[in-house]
C-alpha cells in the first residue's frame, strides 16, 4: 500500500443553486481516508451524505476545493476522463440495488466489464469469481425479479467489485433490507474490507451497520461533527 491517502478532501464546498438562491450543502470540508479503511458516514437526512459520496466517487464536482482520490485530482478531469476513471476505480452499491431488470445476474455483473478490453472468456471468469465471492454461484441465469432483496444487493455488490476497483461507495446499502439480509450484506462488505483490503465508504442510518466499519464519520448540516476510529467487532 502506498503512503498517499486513498482520499483527500481539502476545503471542499458544495452548493446547489436554485434560481438566484444558493443552497450550501457542504462547507469547507477537510477529510483524509487511508487506503483500506472502511468508513461509515452517518448524519441526519439532508446533511449532505449523498452529496459527499458523489464527490468522492467522481459523480459530481465540488463548487470549490480539491478532491484527490487515488492520487487523481478529480476536479481537473474532463467528463469523459472521469467516466473512464470511474469505470476502473469505483464500485457503486445503491440502496435500491439498481440492477438492470432485463439482464440476468450474470449479465448485470458483466456490464462494467464490457467497458474493458477483456475477452469474453476472461469476462466470464471474472463474473463467476465475483458471484462466488458474494455467494451466488448457481444464480447466474436468474433475473433480478427472481431474486430476493438481499440476493439482488449481492448481485449489485458483485457488479461493484467485478472490475476490482480501488474504492467502493455504498449509499445506504442495507436501507431497504430486513435485519437478516442486512446482516449478511454487512458481513460481505466487512469481508471485502478484511480479505481484499478494499477502501469502502458507506452511508448509513443504521447504528448497528455503522459499528461494522473501522471508522465512523458524522455529518451535520454540511460539516463533519464526529470522527471516530473504532475497534472492529468480530462478527458473531
Amino acid at each position, binding site marked *: 500500500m502506498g503512503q498517499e491517502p486513498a482520499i483527500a478532501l481539502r476545503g471542499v464546498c458544495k452548493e446547489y443553486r436554485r434560481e438566484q438562491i444558493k443552497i450550501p450543502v457542504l462547507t469547507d470540508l477537510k477529510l483524509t481516508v487511508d487506503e483500506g479503511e472502511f468508513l461509515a458516514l452517518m448524519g441526519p437526512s439532508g446533511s449532505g451524505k*449523498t452529496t459527499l459520496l458523489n464527490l468522492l466517487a467522481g*459523480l*459530481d464536482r465540488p463548487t470549490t476545493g480539491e478532491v484527490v482520490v487515488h492520487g487523481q485530482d478529480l476536479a481537473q478531469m474532463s467528463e469523459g476522463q472521469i467516466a473512464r476513471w470511474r469505470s476502473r476505480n469505483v464500485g457503486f452499491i445503491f440502496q435500491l440495488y439498481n440492477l*438492470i431488470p432485463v439482464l440476468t445476474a450474470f*449479465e448485470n455483473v458483466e456490464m462494467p466489464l464490457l467497458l474493458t478490453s477483456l475477452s469474453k472468456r476472461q469476462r466470464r471468469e471474472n463474473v463467476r469469481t465475483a458471484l462466488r465471492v458474494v455467494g451466488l454461484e448457481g444464480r447466474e441465469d436468474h433475473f433480478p425479479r427472481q431474486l430476493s432483496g438481499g440476493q439482488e444487493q449481492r448481485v449489485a455488490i458483485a457488479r461493484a467489485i467485478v472490475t476490482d476497483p480501488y474504492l467502493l461507495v455504498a449509499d*445506504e446499502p442495507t436501507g431497504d433490507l430486513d435485519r437478516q439480509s442486512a446482516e449478511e450484506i454487512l458481513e460481505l462488505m466487512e469481508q471485502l474490507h478484511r480479505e481484499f483490503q478494499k477502501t469502502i465508504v458507506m452511508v448509513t442510518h443504521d447504528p448497528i451497520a455503522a459499528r461494522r466499519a473501522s471508522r465512523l464519520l458524522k455529518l451535520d448540516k454540511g460539516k463533519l461533527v464526529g470522527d471516530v476510529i473504532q475497534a472492529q467487532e468480530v462478527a458473531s
Partner: protein
Amino acid sequence: MKYLVYVFRNIRRNPVRTLLTVASISICLFLMMLLLSYLTINTEVAHSLSDYNRLITMSSQGFTQPVPIANVATVAAMEGIATVGELTPEDKEHRDKKAVSPFSWYGGRYKDDSMPGSQFGIDPETIFAIMVEMKLPPDQLKAFRDDKTGCVIGKKLAKDKNLKIGDPYPLKGTVYEFNLDLTIRGIYDAPENRDNRMCLYHWAYLDEGLKRDFQGRAAGNAGTIYFKCKDAAAMPGLIKKIDDSFRNSSTPTKTQTEEAFAQMFSEMIGDLQTLIVAVGMAVVVSLICVCGVAMAMSMRERTTEVAVLKAIGFGRGLVLALVLVEAVIVSTLGGVVGALGTKLLFDQFDLGSLVPGFLPFFYVPWTTALFGLGLAVLIGFVSGVLPAWLAAQTSVIQGLRKVV
C-alpha cells in the same frame, strides 16, 4: 457487438410498444410500397420497351380518336419497317408482309367481370412478329389465323379464369352494342413485365360488328397502328415521314415510340405522382414522430438505469449509440416486415388477377423494396436522435436521486 444483448433485451422490455411501433412502420411502408412500386413499374416497363424498336401511330387528337384502317397500308409501304420474315423466320406464310398491325380497343366484358383485362382487334398475320416477346406455338398461331372469330389470350388470364384452348370466350360490349363471340385458339406467354392478361382477336371481326353498330360510323377504325422498325436509327425519320404524310388529311396522326406512348400514360397521372410523393413524405415525418415518442417514453422509464450505467462508466457517446441502435433495430424490423414482406407477398400473390384492366401485372421491384427498407432505417435513426441525445445528457446525480 458485446452490447447487443442489452439492446435486444431493451427491445423486448415492452413487447407491446415495440410491436406497435413495428406495426405502424410496416403498415405505412406496405401502402408506400404499393404506390411506389406502381410508379416504378410504369417507368421500368416503359424503359424496357425501347429495346423493341416499335412505333405507335395514333390520332393527333389522342389515342381514343380514330385512325383510318387505310393508314395501315400507307405505313406498311414505308421504308425502314421490318418484315414478318425478318422477325420470325419460322413464319414462312407471311414472310414478305410488313410488321404493321391495327390495334383497336373494344372494352368488352367477360361474364360478370368488373375489371376485365384489355382486348384488342389486331392483324393475326403480323402481330406476333411485332410483339416478338409474346410467344405463341406455331400450331396455335395457325389455328388463330384460320378462325376469324378466334382469339388468343395471355397465360395469366387463362389461369385466372381457368380457360383452355377451344373454350368460348364471349365478350359483351360495354361501349359498343354488339358482342364478340370469340373462341380461344391460343394462349400466349410473355415475360413477367408484360401484360399476360390480354385478349387479341381479328381486327376484321371487330370491324364487322362496327359496320352494324351506329350505322357503321365507327367502322374502318384501326384504333392505333403498331409496327416494328428494322433498327432504332430509322425511327426518327419514320416518325417524321409518317406524320408528315397524314398532316393534311382529315385525320392527322401522331407517331411515337412505344416507350413514349407508355410514358404518356404515366404523365397523365403526373399530378397524382407529385401528390403520392408529398403524402409519402408526410407519412415519413409522422412516423419519425411516432417512433420518436415511443423511444423517448421508453428512455424516460429508464432514467435511473441510464444514470447507473453512466455512474459505472458508460460515456455519453456509448449511451447515445445504444439508444440509436435500439431505435434503428426496431424500425428496421418494421422495414423488413413492411417493405420486404410486401415484396414477398406480391411475389406469391398476383395482384393483377384482381384488377387486370388497371394493373395487368404487379410486383415490388427490388429497388423499391430496398428503398423502403432504407427509409425504415432512416426513420429509426432520425427518430432516435432526440431520445438518444436526452439519454446521453441524463445527469447521473439527478437520475440516481429520482428513486434513491
